[in-house]
């Protein structure tokens, strides 16, 4: 699914959260969204998910205005993994993933074989088959994040939105989650804190105080000048032993 964000603005009362954001995301692309805390990443993700109505501008998903799309149809095409989504309910991993089929079911349409297949596939693509009958509250943070992604995949979306999915995960879980996301064959937009993880995206966009100030291939966008200006850090780009570009941060400015 290709996404066209046209002159998008969002605000609460008179405080602008996003100002005049325009952005194009290609079909099948892994698009990283970076920016300091409070720069509007989550707000933009919520607009892309259709959860927040922009005050100006539009989001066009494959030629359809998101604001005009019925909620249920939207949920069949766009899946969203929120920054924080937890529950105190005692439900199993499988039940959590089954929620992803909600937009395909109706009070009269029963759970079918295709729903079951979608759930099983989603569970195995995040390698959580063995956890299917575990209760939610017994899972670690990384496992919960995987289940959230499985739930999103069970929606069989064309666009997957992930809001800082690697937060609070240890390094192994961060890397395996990024590897998982990189291999998914669909359009993905991922908000990230770790700029070196952002370096592995196809393209990145930089949000600063609610404005999109740069977008493009990570090596071109995340240069020393911008990192100093937006993130307030002194950084050097270097080539890692594996040949990929890596950012090295020395101190806060």
């Amino acid at each position, binding site marked *: 699914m290709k996404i066209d964000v046209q002159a998008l603005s969002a605000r609460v009362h008179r405080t602008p959260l996003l100002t005049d954001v325009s952005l194009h995301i290609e079909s099948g692309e892994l698009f990283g969204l970076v920016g300091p805390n409070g720069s509007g990443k989550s707000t933009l993700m919520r607009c892309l998910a259709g959860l927040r109505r922009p005050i100006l501008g539009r989001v066009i998903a494959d030629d359809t205005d998101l604001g005009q799309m019925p*909620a249920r149809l939207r949920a069949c095409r766009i899946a969203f993994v929120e920054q924080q989504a937890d529950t105190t309910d005692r439900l199993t991993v499988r039940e959590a993933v089954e929620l992803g089929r909600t937009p395909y079911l109706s009070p009269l349409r029963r759970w079918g074989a295709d729903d079951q297949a979608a759930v099983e596939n989603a569970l195995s693509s995040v390698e959580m088959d063995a956890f299917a009958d575990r209760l939610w509250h017994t899972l670690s943070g990384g496992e919960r994040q995987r289940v959230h992604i499985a739930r999103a995949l069970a929606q069989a979306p064309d666009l997957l939105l992930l809001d800082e999915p690697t937060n609070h995960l240890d390094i192994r879980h961060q890397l395996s989650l990024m590897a998982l996301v990189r291999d998914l064959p669909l359009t993905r937009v991922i908000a990230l804190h770790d700029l070196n993880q952002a370096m592995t995206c196809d393209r990145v966009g930089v949000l600063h105080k609610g404005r999109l100030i740069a977008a493009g291939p990570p090596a071109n966008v995340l240069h020393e000048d911008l990192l100093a200006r937006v993130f307030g850090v002194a950084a050097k780009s270097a080539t890692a032993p594996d040949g990929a570009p890596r950012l090295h941060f020395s101190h806060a400015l």
Partner: protein
Amino acid sequence: MKMAAAPVRLVAGRGLWLSPLLLAAAIMAGTAIGETRLPFLTVLQTLANHLWGAGYPVDGIEAGIIWSYRLPRAIIAACSGAGLALTGVVLQALLRNPLADPYLMGLSAGASTGAVLVTVAGVGGGAISMSLGALTGALLAFGCVVALAHAVNGAAGGGRATQAAAAIILAGIAGSQMFNALTAFTIARSANAEQARGIMFWLMGNLSGVRWEDVWACAGVSLAGVALCLWYRRGLDAFTFGADGAASLGINVQALRGSLITATAIMVGVLVSKVGAIGFVGLVVPHAMRFLVGTRHDRLVPASALAGAVFLVAADVISRILVPGQVLPIGVVTALVGAPAFALILVRGGARR
């Protein structure tokens, strides 16, 4: 304990088809047991006589007790228990708050105020029945709570649906306090000791004096409530990870929340207007049922409705036989059982975290 949960769930899930039988048995027991214990056979014969004119020879007084007094009472207890438990399920799911229950929304406070204004302060000059007063009060209070929650949300800048849930709970507490104060004020101003005692009784739940006319209203709203909740079971499930989670699963959060909460408010309003304010059923039964059948609403809704019904029929029987020669307010019994049960749930819930 974690290990034990799964088989219990399985058994409870499979046993669901038994529920109409269980409910019928509870109503039979509620009809047979009382100050004068009547044989089950007499109960069945009386039912057969009334339902299809079977013509069994049954003592007239006993038949009168069964048909005009105990049976409608047991049925209304069942309907009220089901309705209150169902409202707890809906509110706890939609507001994502384990403490949400029917009375949090100001319903019981408003019903009390309405009833007191009609009976004690003489509002309506006798043209309005206490039930109608209570129903009006309940819905008025509910309207105030919702309006207040909207105002709070508006001032906070709309924002996320999760905040809206917090706002409505705070608004519910404010509204309940306000209407309770109005009730206390009216009683203090106008009631004599006799009236005050009667009102106290009613406020704790009172099933005496219910008639067949009341049965139709109560059965109608609670059956409609069960049907509505089953129809929207997947929508209720979708709130597991919060309102935003539901929205991203394609649920129209505001519409679903608005219509289900309003529908359950009307249901509780009708029930409270007939039987008074019975506490703890709406709070405890849904939690207990989540332990037994899990959190999926296709099972939780029927299980809670059934358990609430059976629980309240049992509580009514206990309220009639616990102190010989005296009928306790049913709310006393539900609180005496419900409060420790709730404490147990809290402790067990705490232990597993």
